[in-house]
């Protein structure tokens, strides 16, 4: 710890006193002596004493390079500053502004995972870190599965540096880090340099690849600056790509970046990473059930009723949960995987193991993300039902499988937000829907209306 040196100024009002100490006139201490003395004061320590650690951190920066010795020692997560206008699907008429999230390894500088989102939330933060940790075959969309084996960057980090984004520091996201004992470094505001690797990577990816993407919005001014409107409008006219196409371009850019030379080690970044694995092997979480309950949204203290538990507008129940309800348990904790909402895990103090509960309101035939499920079931994040003024209220609802196919087809081919649906929820769902395998259009009835009328008349006449 450095000591703070506070120079003692001579008492100028009493020259005779100065003479007593051998100090007279301007001979000593000279101005230069004082300047030098003051310049050696540790300004950080001084600011820490005067304005506190938090503000001192913002104004004074250490000049050194942070050294890490093996891959997996330190990871950094962030969203890019630039934005891109993209279409959620091929039929969508108006493009939307999307953000890209990246995760990097500090030592080797390889990119560990990515995420494209319209609206960063706790679910997207969890997804982003999940993409960084798990092997790529387990999460890449179907049309990009061919690249999974080339991108063998996996594993939990010892420390993860995050900025002050609320989505990254959400309770659910922190619970995920705590479960695996990952040290979370929350970087103070205006200190991007404390996670400089991810900032530099974002810049490189932007300069090398994303700048050329149609619909790219450079962050020339702060986002709320009125001058940004003109830039955004100009970029919007250039928008051509869908999210799926952009993801492919981004993935190719990431692979190229990982295969480029490391600036200090003078060999490919991916080779730096792979060589480092011999020193420190990657640490992987195993067990899909556990992974589903760890990389998950946490809902604490939800009420249990006879009908089960209501989470985020989705109703879950099972025979075991019902039994638990009958024993008098009123509140439980629920873990919900945002990538597959068909089942959730219920934790209670009464239980040794979690209960797996099933979605009761709808039977999804395949793994469905939270956004798509909300869209299909018409519930908001607060659990409120959609305000959809259905014209065909009297119609029979189709069976679940047909309805799922119909809704997913509409989602994948919708030209814009549908009537009565909120725009941002619809856009979120469209992105997740685009990641799912494309579905065939629902088959129409082979009997046309005229035939039906004729049949009705015929039956009435008989």
């Amino acid at each position, binding site marked *: 710890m450095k000591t703070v040196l506070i120079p003692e100024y001579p008492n100028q009002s009493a020259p005779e006193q100065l003479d007593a100490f051998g100090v007279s006139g301007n001979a000593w201490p000279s101005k230069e002596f004082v300047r030098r003395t003051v310049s050696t004061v540790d300004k950080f320590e001084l600011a820490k004493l005067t304005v506190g650690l938090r503000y001192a951190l913002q104004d004074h920066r250490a000049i050194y390079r942070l050294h890490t010795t093996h891959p997996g020692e330190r990871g950094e997560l962030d969203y890019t500053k630039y934005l891109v206008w993209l279409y959620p699907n091929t039929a969508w008429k108006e493009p939307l502004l999307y953000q890209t999230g990246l995760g990097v390894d500090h030592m080797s500088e390889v990119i560990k995972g990515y995420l494209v989102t319209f609206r960063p939330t706790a679910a997207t933060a969890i997804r982003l870190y999940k993409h960084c940790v*798990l*092997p*790529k*075959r*387990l999460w890449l969309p179907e049309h990009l599965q061919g690249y*999974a*084996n*080339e*991108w*063998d960057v*996996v594993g*939990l980090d*010892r420390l993860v540096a995050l900025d002050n984004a609320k989505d990254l520091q959400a309770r659910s996201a922190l*619970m995920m880090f*705590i*479960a*695996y*004992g990952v*040290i979370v*470094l929350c970087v103070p505001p205006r200190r991007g340099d404390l996670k400089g690797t991810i900032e530099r990577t974002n810049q490189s990816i932007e300069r090398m690849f994303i700048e050329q993407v149609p619909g790219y919005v450079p962050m020339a001014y702060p986002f709320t600056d009125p001058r940004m409107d003109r830039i955004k409008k100009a970029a919007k006219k250039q928008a051509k790509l869908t999210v799926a196409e952009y993801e492919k371009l981004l993935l190719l850019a990431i692979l190229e970046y990982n*295969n480029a030379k490391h600036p200090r080690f003078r060999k490919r970044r991916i*080779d730096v990473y*792979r060589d480092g694995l011999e020193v*420190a*092997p*990657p*640490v*992987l*979480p*195993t*067990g*899909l*059930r*556990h*992974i589903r*309950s*760890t990389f998950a949204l*946490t809902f*604490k203290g939800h009420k249990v009723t006879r009908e089960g538990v209501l989470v985020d507008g989705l109703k879950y129940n099972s025979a075991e949960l019902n039994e638990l309800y009958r024993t008098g348990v009123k509140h439980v*904790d629920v*873990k919900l995987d945002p990538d597959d909402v068909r089942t959730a*895990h219920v*934790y*209670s*103090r009464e239980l*040794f*193991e*979690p209960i797996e509960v099933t979605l009761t309101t709808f039977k999804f035939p395949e793994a469905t993300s939270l956004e798509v499920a909300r869209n299909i079931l018409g519930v908001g994040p607060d659990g409120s039902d959609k305000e959809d003024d259905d014209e065909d209220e009297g119609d029979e609802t189709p069976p679940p499988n047909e309805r799922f196919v119909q809704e997913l087809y509409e989602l994948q081919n919708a030209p814009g937000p549908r009537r009565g649906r909120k725009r941002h929820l619809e856009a979120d769902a469209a992105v997740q829907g685009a990641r799912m395998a494309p579905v065939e259009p629902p088959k129409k009835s082979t009997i046309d209306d005229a035939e039906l009328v004729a049949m009705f008349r015929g039956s009435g006449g008989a």
Partner: protein
Amino acid sequence: MARIVAVDLFVGRVLRIDGVRHRVTGFGGRRGTTPTVHLMPEGSARVIRMPRAELYALIVEEKAALVDDTEDPECVERMAEVNLSRLSDARLVDWYHKMILLRHLFAHAALSPRSKRFQAAAQEAREILQWVREGSGITSRKDWSDKTLNDDLRRWRRSGYALSAIQAKGLQYRPWRTRKPRYVLASEIARQVRNEYPRISVRNVHRHTRFRLARLLQQAAGESVAIEQSTKERPGNEVCDENSSHPGVPQPIRT
């Protein structure tokens, strides 16, 4: 079973993939191509080239597992998943802090708690934890001795690094239920070697134990190609002094 696994792959490492034991025979795919792991199923001379990323995915899905028969045996009756939500806030903090310590000492699990390296690593881990405590503002007076941490690590390792083996209230103690036959045999042989050569180093006891274990297993199983390879891979194991008082046993390095 929920656990975290350090995927340290090296030549000679045994993996169980879909119930079949495979031995790592090499690595390939450098210089721009997809990195692969060369695997040889036991009892077969065929080499399978599996992409490294695919092997990671199989390990995560628990279709593949790293095997070491001479490691401590598996425990039974464990919690399937970790349940942090049951813990109080103080216990949750304890869990987190203990995980930070254990994650740091992960690589030193085989060391004695009295060794200098372990003590230095434990001290470093405590400094990191102190830094986390100061940075997060969440203080806790909970502390663990080197001996306790070493016990925790060994227990964690014994349960296959299952996360449920770590609970906030110390560690959930689970006695050894089943000992694999090879484990019992290996410990017996190690004791025997130590009695025969009381002055040799641990490294040489290890060498002798591996050699004798392999020979015994060979005799028991008739012809086992894989085990023979594993013993030959170790330099010094196949070099035996015929004139010594114990023919067939490598001579210890006298120091």
